[in-house]
């Protein structure tokens, strides 16, 4: 009987410790999915978000030398300015859906640490691989000689 008690107590201690670790882990790394409207309604500076929306036409700025990428994500009702350091991922462009992960800054823009992309099997894309005139690109590169 006493042996059993030792097991039960030991088991409870371990379960409690694990529970605490999980709780701490979750609260520290939880990331909330929001739309631009939801974010605008109640932005919390420093909180981790995943923001999904459409990249507004005319908002995309990419500076290769400084690696500054900025654009606006909208959902038809509001837009959120987003800034990211690093080259845009391949599945990214104006008038396309995008999901970014990062946090809202006190300066009034969303700082994206990650831009996420999703592949779909049943969905087929334009011939040009999403980039205008890539055949021209091939031709210029080939004639470039290298």
């Amino acid at each position: 009987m006493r042996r059993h008690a030792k097991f039960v107590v030991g088991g409870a201690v371990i379960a409690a410790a694990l529970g605490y670790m999980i709780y701490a882990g979750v609260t520290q790394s939880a990331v909330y999915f929001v739309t631009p409207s939801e974010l605008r309604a109640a932005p919390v500076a420093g909180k981790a978000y995943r923001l999904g929306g459409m990249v507004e036409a005319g908002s995309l700025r990419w500076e290769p030398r400084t690696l500054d990428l900025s654009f606006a994500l909208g959902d038809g009702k509001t837009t959120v300015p987003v800034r990211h350091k690093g080259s845009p991922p391949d599945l990214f462009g104006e008038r396309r859906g995008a999901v970014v992960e990062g946090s809202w800054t006190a300066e009034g823009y969303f700082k994206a640490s990650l831009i996420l992309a999703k592949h779909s099997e049943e969905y087929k894309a334009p011939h040009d691989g999403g980039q205008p005139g890539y055949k021209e690109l091939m031709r210029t590169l080939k004639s470039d000689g290298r």
Partner: protein
Amino acid sequence: MTRRPVRWLLPLSVVPLLALLAYGFRVNPHEIPSPLVGRPAPGFALQTFEGAPFALEAQRGKVVVLNFWASWCRPACYEEAPVLERQWRTYRERGLVVIGVDIQDRDEAARTFVREFGLSFPNGRDTAGKVSVDYGVYGVPETFFIDRQGRIRAKHVGAVTDEAFRTNVEKLLADTTG
């Protein structure tokens, strides 16, 4: 003493988990919440393969199904073409307009596609690429369901099924306030 009922907790304990996993089925991935939904459909005009003009603004008062396709889009566009034709024939009497817009394609290949499937609803090429940009078309096929007031009410990504077509169209046809 309490051993007998306690043991049956074991198989019962998985019920909440299974319920949770079943809950995950509720989301339908083909109904993309597009920011365009609820907004006025961008107007456009094009010439069909028969040479007739088509303008979206002229369709006000009717329910419009706008389908973006291409002849190289396999197999999805090939699967939905018969569906579109079939549903078009069913609903045309009730004031439905189906318009197919062919994007980034070659004229001959597109005409062959239309001929092969015997498509009787108007189809035309988006020669300047403007229409697909205005609708934020990302890939093919994409289908937009536009109501009588000219607002986009739903966007379907991937091959349209009879079921999806019917559900969306019936809802919009029932709305006779336009």
